[in-house]
């Protein structure tokens, strides 16, 4: 590896290469999303679960006169429920529907160099290949990049990788 000081110089020199990322955490892992794709960080919110909805949805939350559907990052990663309160980010891409992403905590804005981005490892399983978009090698470890476009609720339900768990309703069948 290179010396720390050298890296800093490198980043300054290659400013055009710099990307501003928002770091966030789920289950002790660090993830990053391009700040241009984040509309707002809502902070801790009370989420209303929607019965019969896919497991990867954390619920709905009121947001500026709309009802925002939120995606639970932990559920996508196959982790159990978070013990503390969760944090909601509002994703907004012109072309895509607006939705919320629920994570354990939001770190802050970090500058990352595009040259430090590595592709997904070939050994990654299918879900990971869908969710992750490479990783930045940061001083503290890896920051896995997420692509909000692939995280939108409708895309997730289309792709079928996360469908296994529409829970509940088992005893609701009429012939029971």
């Amino acid at each position: 590896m290179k010396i720390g000081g050298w890296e800093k110089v490198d980043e300054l020199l290659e400013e055009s290469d710099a990307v501003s990322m928002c770091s966030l955490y789920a289950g002790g892992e660090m993830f990053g999303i391009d700040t241009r794709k984040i509309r707002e960080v809502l902070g801790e919110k009370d989420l209303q679960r929607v019965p019969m909805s896919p497991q990867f949805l954390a619920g709905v939350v009121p947001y500026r006169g709309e009802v925002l559907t939120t995606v639970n990052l932990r559920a996508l990663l196959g982790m159990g429920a978070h013990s503390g309160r969760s944090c909601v980010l509002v994703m907004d891409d012109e072309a895509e529907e607006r939705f919320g992403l629920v994570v354990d905590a939001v770190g802050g804005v970090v500058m990352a160099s595009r040259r430090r981005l590595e592709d997904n490892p070939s050994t990654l399983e299918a879900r990971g290949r869908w969710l992750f978009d490479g990783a930045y090698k940061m001083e503290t470890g890896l920051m896995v990049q997420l692509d909000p476009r692939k995280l939108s609720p409708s895309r997730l339900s289309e792709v079928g990788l996360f469908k296994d768990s529409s829970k509940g309703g088992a005893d609701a069948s009429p012939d029971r």
Partner: protein
Amino acid sequence: MVAPHDYVSAPDIQSVDELTKEFLAESQEGLDRMERCLTELEMRPDDVDLLGEIFRAVHTIKGTTGFLGFDRLEKLAHAGEHLLGALRDGKLVATSDLISGLLRLMDGLRAILGLIEETGSEGTRAGDEDGELIAELARLNGHEAEELPEIETPQIALVETGRVQGEAPVASRGDASPALQPVAVSEKASADKTLRIDVDVLNRMMNLVGELVLTRNQMLQSGMDAANFPELARRLDSVTADLRETVMQARMQPVGNLFGKFPRMVRDLARTCAREVRVEFSGQETGLDKSLLEAIKDPLTHAVRNAVDHGIESPADRVLAGKPAEGCLRLKAFHQSGSVVIEVEDDGAGIPIERVLQKAVERNLVTAEDASAMSEREALQLIFLPGFSTAAAVTTVSGRGVGMDVVRANVEKVGGSVEVESRRGIGTTLRLRVPLTLAIVPSLVVKSGGQSFALPQSALVELVDLPQREFAQVVQRIGSSELYRLRERLLPMVWLDRLLGLDAYQPETSKGHYLAVLEAEGCRYGLVVDDLMSPEEIVVKPLSPVLREIGLFSGATVLGNGMLALILDVGATAARAGVKPVEGELSEAGGEEEMAQAAAEISFLIFEDRARERTALPLDVVERIESVPLGQIEYAGGRPLLQYRGELLPLRDEGSVLREMEDARRQGEEPLVTVLICGNADTQRTQRGGMVVRQVLDVSTGTLLEQDAANGEMELALVKEKLMQVHREFGAGVKVAWQEVA
């Protein structure tokens, strides 16, 4: 090719430029006007004004087209204009054929306009797509196609356009170039995305928003603890209410916009079915929310079709029946108790009840015995069952298997209802009842499994309390399904928490449940919920597609406490729980029958006035139940009086409740008095009075027996199978109090 202008404005396939958009909107409006006029023209072929109007519509299109460079459109419009010119000058007579030709011209123009709107160009390659139509128009004009005179110069057309515009209600922009007509945007243009709003309404909205901002600023500055905070909150409330009302008003569209399409449709239908039909309208100006107008378009179209095809008889049959050969179809719209009613009325043969019954039995919708026992009203309800169609032959017009059940489902989807009335030989009336607006729905908020859900009031029939200790007695089982016996009808019970897979509350800690009796799409069932919250007027927010897919929720809303509640789709919930519409329908029919048998049964409000005695009043006499602080009750000449909504009501105090309460008051309490506000149900508002009671107990049905000879003031009644004594009051003879003796 978009020809001459291609290189100047370079119309982009993606976006139609502003100029063209305005032209499209304006042309659509012109064609709408033309459509109306054409059908009228058939009745009054000599009306010069009508002809003028039609001519102008086509002329305007032709003029502007030339300017924008839509060749194909111009060619067609020119052919039409030429024909209309001859008609206007009296060289031709408006025959039925001619009008059909003109209608086709209109369709042709519409099709091209639609193409322009979609693709940005009129899509012509060879330039002869409309050759046939143009030739036909020429033939109607008595010419060969080649003989069309030269196209007039656009300049003249523009002068003409200006004149038409002068008649439009919206003021013209002063500096507008001739083709930049001020947009009185028709709601049809640009796929119903635009709306015409009165400028006054818009100004009012702006003012209100301004006030809202000011109030917010004041609130932010003064903070929660300020002395004037309640005052500010009140102002915010009133501004919000005003704003809401104004926005709703802006969304209101006259029903006439929808009716306008029917003369043409009826005309075409009448021709295919060989009927003679006249269409009459009333109440076109009745306002209805735009989204609702869209929602009832299809059901209404279906109803009109039915009326022409099945309702009105052939001219020969009509004459035989002693009716004029021309049938009459009336479309009426009016307000009635908070909803808009739209009636489709024909003076045809009415619905043949035996045929309905016969068909219902054939299709196994009812059993033969049930059918023979049915009243006429019940039999009529059968036409709303899925898979029912009485048309003997499948015609091109109706009888394709989609029938009244779809009409009803569509209307119920927006919180409305459908009724049908039919009199043999006189006609049929179909009544669609829709709420004024969709966006704000009165609903009841309930809790189940720790979550809040909103039930639309329109689907809610009644609420039943199921206390935990009585649960085992009132709930009956057949196999695994639970039923509630409500007034001798078995109601299927659906547990909301189980249906949704929510964690049920612990039975030990639960104090009981509530049963919300719901009715939608012909299903009636009881939804079991944990708790009832307040009724609220909720603002419906759409859900994202993923959540809509679940199919059980029609939207979400933010409650007064800031929490979100999902709005339950009552019909879909029934379907998910397996409640069948037919069952509901039949049990309803059975219930009605029962009601008819026991016509004398009345609902009574049972209460306690003297200590531990139960007394009853007919429910329709009681207007309200009020809780009044004792201090508000005044005395005049020893008689208690209550000032109630600007009226002075005499109070009756059979059980000396007031005296007891006065005693309690002297000991420092401020007790609340329960007063039944009673009116005379028949004559309304005369002879109102109050009745002081200890507590209200129940509502129940009973039968009125004959007068008791022993006491002129008393009557006897059976309530809950116990003999009751009744005595007449207030001299009106209608207000009666019922006293239990057994």
